[in-house]
Each structure stands twice: as structure tokens, then as C-alpha cells.
């Protein structure tokens, strides 16, 4: 499987993702945002960072990069696209995912391990994982997902919520919510399920040495999705 990892000037998780993808047998190429060509790839990752410093609003400037059009094109062809952290913010900014990410309710940047319940297996990143309670790191200052009531009702009804913050037992409590996100939402998908964004960092928990391997399950689901033909989104 060939995976494109997009790099904006202030991205800092691109090599982390490339490394984690290599652990699950995927070939990852890091592509510069200004001339990224996603044709020929099986999936794309928009990793974390501060794409353009993000002094204005996370992801706001990245949304006018040529890479935004390329991501929209790849989405039309059904390519699996994963956005993590700043990548999730960018996918929301360019309209591939609903809602927006705003400053954490407590106002602080927060780096910690959190628990998540996987709510949907109808994405190429969560096949077979529905109901699993996993542990992943977060590291963000603007990870509080917000949307109007109609949008929230729609994505809940459509089963587009993919990851929800929970406590260690898998209950979506206020204490388990690290940033005040609406309905404890940590990650969601578009209507087709091919585009998924989440604030946590699966690439940071893909090795026992780093304290956990739950992120690897997400990346493995991606590589497995191709073999099982669950997603027919390859652009080739």
C-alpha cells in the first residue's frame, strides 16, 4: 500500500507518520504541500503540526494551499484520507469534514494520554474496531470540536462519529473529555466514510516502546481495508 503524507511548512508529524506506517508494511512518501500529487497513492495522511504557524486559526492558511484542492479531488475519487491533530483541523477548514475545532475549553494546550471508544467501523481506518476502547496521546490547544445542532444531529444519525473521548472503562463522561469537545467527539468521518479526522495521534502509539500500540490498530485497519476490499477508493 502506498500512502502519501502531506507536509506543510510547519508540519511536524510527517516523519512520525511515515515511520509508523512503515511498521504496518505501508510505503509512505512525504509530499510537499505546494506541489503534492496524490494520483497513484492508495491513501493520504494530513499529519499534525502548526501548518502555517496557525496564529490566525489552526488550519486556516493551509486551507488556501494548492494541497487543499488536491485533497478535495482525491476525496471525490473516494481515497481514504486521515487527518490527525492539525490535519483534522485542516480537513474541517477545507470542508471535507463537518464542524470546526476551537480553543480547548480550559484554554490550555494539553498533552496527555486519553481513552477513546471507537464508534464506527464504516471507515477504512476502523474496520473491525467498533466498540474497542483504546488509549492514545493528544497534543493540542485547539481540539474542541463544535458544530451547530443540526450538523451534530446529522452526523450522530449518520454514524459519522468515529472516536469519542471516554474514561478508562469506555464511558463518555465529562472527566474523560480533555478539551470540552461537543458530545465528547474526538474524531469523525465524512458521509462516505473515506475521510476521517481525529485530534489524537495514532502515530505516537504504534510501538510498545513508546507506551502503547492502539494507534497501530488504526493504521493496520487501513492496510487491511485494501485486501478485504472494504473501501473501493483507490485512485489508481
Amino acid at each position, binding site marked *: 500500500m502506498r500512502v502519501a503524507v502531506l507536509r506543510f*511548512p*510547519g508540519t511536524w508529524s510527517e*516523519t512520525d507518520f511515515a515511520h509508523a506506517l512503515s511498521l504496518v508494511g505501508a510505503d509512505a512518501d512525504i509530499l510537499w504541500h505546494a506541489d503534492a500529487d496524490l494520483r497513484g497513492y492508495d491513501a493520504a495522511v494530513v499529519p499534525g503540526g502548526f501548518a*502555517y504557524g496557525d496564529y490566525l486559526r489552526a488550519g486556516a492558511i493551509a486551507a488556501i494551499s494548492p494541497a487543499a484542492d488536491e485533497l478535495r479531488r482525491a476525496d471525490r475519487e473516494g481515497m481514504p484520507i486521515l487527518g490527525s491533530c492539525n490535519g483534522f483541523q485542516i480537513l474541517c477548514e477545507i470542508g471535507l469534514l463537518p464542524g470546526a475545532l476551537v480553543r480547548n475549553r480550559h484554554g490550555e494546550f494539553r498533552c496527555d494520554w486519553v481513552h477513546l471508544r471507537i464508534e464506527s467501523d464504516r471507515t477504512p481506518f476502523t474496520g473491525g474496531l467498533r466498540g474497542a476502547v483504546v488509549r492514545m*496521546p493528544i*497534543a493540542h490547544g485547539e481540539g474542541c470540536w463544535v458544530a451547530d445542532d443540526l450538523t451534530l444531529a446529522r452526523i450522530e444519525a449518520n454514524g459519522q462519529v468515529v472516536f469519542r473521548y471516554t474514561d478508562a472503562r469506555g464511558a463518555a463522561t465529562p472527566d474523560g473529555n480533555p478539551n470540552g469537545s461537543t458530545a465528547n467527539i474526538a474524531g469523525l468521518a465524512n458521509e462516505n466514510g473515506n475521510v476521517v479526522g481525529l485530534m489524537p495521534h495514532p502515530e505516537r502509539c504504534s510501538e510498545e516502546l513508546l507506551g502503547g500500540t492502539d494507534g497501530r490498530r488504526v493504521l493496520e485497519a487501513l492496510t487491511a481495508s485494501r485486501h478485504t476490499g472494504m473501501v473501493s477508493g483507490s485512485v489508481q
Partner: protein
Amino acid sequence: MSVTPMISGTTTAQPKFRLPREAGLTESEAERIRFLLDREPNALEWGMFGAMWSEHCAYKHSKTLLRTLPTTGARVALGPGENAGAVDLGDGLLCVFKVESHNHPSAVEPYQGAATGVGGILRDIFAMGARPIAVLNGLFFGPPEREATRRLVRGVVGGISFYGNCVGIPDVGGHVTFAPGYADNPLVNAMCVGLVERADLRSAATAKPGSAVYLVGSDTGRDGIAGASLLASFELGSADAAKRPSVQVGNPFLEKLLLEATLELVALDAVEAIQDLGAAGLTCASSEVAAKSNVGMRIDVDSVPRRATGMIPYEVMLSESQERMLVIARPGREADIERVFARWELHGVRIGEVIADERLEIRSDGEIVASLPPKALADDAPEYDVREWSAAPAEAPQMDTPRVDEPVQKIGLELLELLGSPDVASRAILYRTYDQMVGTDTVVGPGADAAVMRIKGRLDGIAIALDAQPHVAALDPFTGAAAAVAEATRNLVCVGAEPLAITDCLNLGNPERPEGAWQLERTIAGISAACDALEIPVVSGNVSLYNATHGRDIWPTATIGAVGRIADVTKHIPARTGEPGDLVLLAGSAQVSLAASTYAGLRGHSDGTVRIDLALEARLQRFVRAAHARGAIRAAHDRAEGGLGVALAELAIRDGIGMKVTLPAVRGIDKRVMLFGEGPSGIVLVIRTADELLVRAIATEHDVPLWTLGAIGGDILEIAPVLGTPVASLVRAHRDGLGHALGRAS
């Protein structure tokens, strides 16, 4: 060209001041400059000398003593003198590191001061061609109940978080002290560690005549004119608000671009020399590169991109605008350099050239506005030997150990109080605002004895610790500094590493006063003695003097950053409690006392005498490393603030498992002192029962005392005969203590 350039002070190029004193120079320093130049400098030249000969840039009061530190060793790849030092990890990989202070800017403007402190130390590392992989912080504040302290903590921690998170370098550990000695003058020290292949190591000493000089990064503004150089060279006083414009403002996104562009230029081998712009800005960067490379430099000051209009050459040459680098191109590679700048959307401009004649020639508007020998600026500042006037304080610290007379039944509550006290409680509410994991190399992050980093593609890893012993140093700067070196290296040993080298940040008061001079002398002597005993060199460092407010010095504070190597990173000693049934041992010294202890400090005492047996420390570290090499160590923890009681509690907190232990019986040491007393050279070890004989044999071989205290198990920390406390209570006290102390809702 050796003509005396004639620059009259009448042109607009010249700053206002007429006297050397206004540039921060003493009359004898001015005399020395006139002698070196054989002429009267103009005002711009006085300004350039004033910044370069400031304490911050020239180390006038410390250079002589710093030469006494051991700086060589089998693993040293680069000792002090460059932007940072380096040790050899083997197979061509170097680990580059340095610790630096940003005290005065942080006192004046905490958020930007701390942020730009991180920026400065990162640039020191990537200017060497190394990719930064970790930062650590040493922070020293006044009492946490003071509103001023709380404001400082919010500002400083916020600034570190803002800058480091955006650039994307994990913050993996550090040290925080709250003590009265820092109430008026907080300390903000930052350490950065990077990695570089030996072939890619870059230097500031390799510029050659004819090469183009580029200035890249931020445009040059009026922010921080002579800020760090002068601000850090005088005491803080009531006029500090007026100095606020001298504090620089940080742009971490630009730093990230500069970092990536610099490393790309190194990979392309397109640069001859690199130097970051820090204190004294362009003056320092250009004169240091020229002096180290035995060349000169011609700079057209008008070509420097500016943020403000009407800036005179003095302002351009002394601006400390952040996120700037001086890049000397390899001849013929100018196009490559400009292409890389453009790709990273950086403003990089050719501002001059390297010349053979050893002169730093500044041109503006077609005339030469300054022309100075680089070595006079960079190397020829006077050195003052503080030993000539140093004197121990007349009022020697009292020698009697504080008494303890509380009834024994309160001892469990005392342990909880200590666990939640500002110097012991968990720092998680601070470090959770730092990204600790970006880069996916952090094996052990903040909160452990030392951080552990893996290196992708290699079996070995590195361990990093940053420590200080300010309470001990307040009583005796020699022992405090030696104990800091011992603790930092001991913490490396506690995660299974072999200490390789240290970097030191010396934060001291006014060296012109006899007591300040004595503290400087004794601090350096303490580091030197510990380094000799532990056979560990100093490869880089920084000295911050004049940490005094209204005539009152801070406590003498040596912040020691230590780097070690773990041969197989998967076999580091993890920060866990151990398995039920495992044995708990104390190794090293049981000669603890309440002098300078956290326990006594909470009761308003700070007197007494602390002793360090450096030979025992060396044997202890060798013993633990030998036992770990035999696979016998399940867990280890340094006995530090709060003594053995806190060390055992912190061990239990790790996995939430209790233990049942008995205090060692040592003649003349009361049970409470044994529990809460502090002293160097103690490590709590957890081993399998089956390994006890082996571990005892290794301890005997290394002549290290060893006590078997008890065994892991249950959910109570039971320390016979004095206390039994549920681990859950320990966890709460430790977790919530700092938030309570700082008045924050938990």
C-alpha cells in the same frame, strides 16, 4: 586594508551616546579598547564593544575559572567554545547539547522571555547542523502562594509551551524549585539536545575569504536592542519596566522554517559556516565567525532587511530580533542557498562577504561607519579573576541541624504534606501543557528520574536529566554544585544509562561583591570536583551573573544537564514500581540529615551542614550500572527532595502498588530524620528476590552499603514502625499538591 577608517560622529549613522560608559564600558575597559585600536572609536564602535564586552557575551568574571573545568574525555567530540558541545554515541553519530539561561528577559516579560529562551537554545543546536530532539527546562520561582509567583509561572510555562509546541520539539523533563531565594529574580534555564552525523557537524569557525554572507530569517527590528547582552549584565532594579522594550518577541513558526532550511542547507553541503544571532545580534554573530575563522567580514548594513524605518546602523548591528541566522555560503552554492530560502518562504539576503583582512567593516550609505578587529571584539575583553576579592560571607550558616519534636503519630500526615509540597508534588499540571511526544522518540518523558529517548534505526538510546540543588547551594555553593552534578548523573544511572558528559548553567549574583565572587568561585570548584570524581567532562554551558535585585543576590544555582547512553534502549530501567514480592533496597549512603531538606524548609529552617562523599557517589553509580548490566534491576529511584519516605512513596505511586518496608537502623539517626532527611548518594532499588545474593555480591565488590528494606505488594505504603498510608492517598497528595499551592482549581 589597514588604514584607519575615519568615521566622524556627526553622521546620522551614529548612536547618541558620547561616552564609553553609556555603552556599558568601564573607564579601564575603554582605555584597553583605545590601546587595542590605537585610536578613539566612534560611537557605533563603542556600542559594538559595549555589547561584545558585556558580561553576558564576554564572560569577563567567569572565563578564568571556567578554564579549570575538565572538558576532555574519550566520548567528547566537541568541548566548550562553539554554539554547543557534543559527545560521540558511536558509528558516526554525535549528540549535541547545551543549557542556557534566559533569566533577565523572563523576569521582565515572562511569556516572551521564556519563549525566546527556548528559541535561542534551539538555534544553538541547529546552527551546529544537528536536529533538535528534546528540550528540558530548569525553572526557579519564589514561594507559590505569592500572586507575583503565580503570574510568573503562568507566563513562563505559557511561553515555553507556545514556542516549543509550535516548533515541534518534545519537552521531556526538567527541574522546578519554589524558594524564597528566587522571589525577586526567577531563573529560566533551557536545555536542548540534538543529533547529527559527524560529517554534517557545522561550525562557526570555517568561513573563508571571498564567501558570501547571508542573513536569513526575521527582519531586523528595534526589539531587544542590546537586550540580552546588556539586560543580563546588570542587576534588576526598580527601573525594570523601562527595560521591557528590550525583551525580544518570539515567532516559533519562523524558527521552524529556519530550522528546516538550515538542516536542508547542511544536507546539501552548501554552507561553509553558520552562526545564530542571539545576544548582541549581528555584531556578535559576525565578529565571532570572523574571529574564530581568522578572517574578516564586510557588511553592508543598508542591505539588512528591517522591520522599522529610519533605523541607524547602531540599531541594526545591536538588534536582538529573534529567529535570525548568519549563513556563510560555499563559493558557487549561492543559488542553492537562495532556492532553499525561497522554498521555506524565508527572507534571506546577501549582506556582505568574508574578507582576508581581519577586520569587521560595517558600511552604510557608501561610507565605512565602523571598522574593528573581530578578535578585539570577540576575544580581547578583559578577564577578571574574582578570586582576588572573593570572601566567604561573614555570617556563616549556622551549623546546628533543625530539631524535630512533633509527636510520632503525625508522621503519616507529614509524609502526605511533603508529597504535596511545591518542591515535591507532581509537575504534571505544568508539563502537560508541553508536547512531550512529538518526534515519536520519547520512551520516558517528564516526571521520571531522567528522560529516555530512542534513536530510530539504532539499538542505543540516550538519557537526559536536568537538576539543581539550590537549597544545598544556599548553605554551601561548593557542595550544592557538586551535589547537582552527582544528582543529574545519578538520575541517568536510575534509568539505566552510562553518563557521558554534562552541560552547566551557572546562575549567580553580582560577581563584583566579595560574597558573589566567592559563590562563583566555589560553584565552579564544586562542579570541577564532582566531574573529576565521577570522571565526566563538561562540554558546554552558560554563565548568568548579576541575578540580584535591589542588591540582594539569588541563591547560587548551578543547573546541570547530563546526557547518558543506554546501549540497548529497550533495556532501560522503566519508571515502574515493581512486581508484588520484589525486594526494596536502599543503596549508598544512609547519612541523611534535615539540613537543607524539604521537611525542614516547610518548617522554616534552612540551616545545617550537607556533606557529599564524591568517592561513594562514584562507587554507587558504578554499582547500579553493574547490577543493571546483569539484568538485576527492576526499578530504581533517586532519593531526593523529601528523603527516603518520599522516594518510597513516589515508587509506589508509579504503578499504584504498595510495599511493606522497615527503615534502616543507623546509629545516631532518629527515625523521622531517616524518613525525611536528605543527603546525596542514595538510590532505592527494586529487584527480584532471586537476585538478592547477586546484587549483594556486586554491592560488596563496589564497596557500596546496601539495606534490604522490605517487599512490594498490597495497596498500602507501610513503613515500619512509623506509618501505613493507602497508596491512593499518596497519589492524590502528589497529584494535587502543586495545583493547590498555585491556587488553581484542580
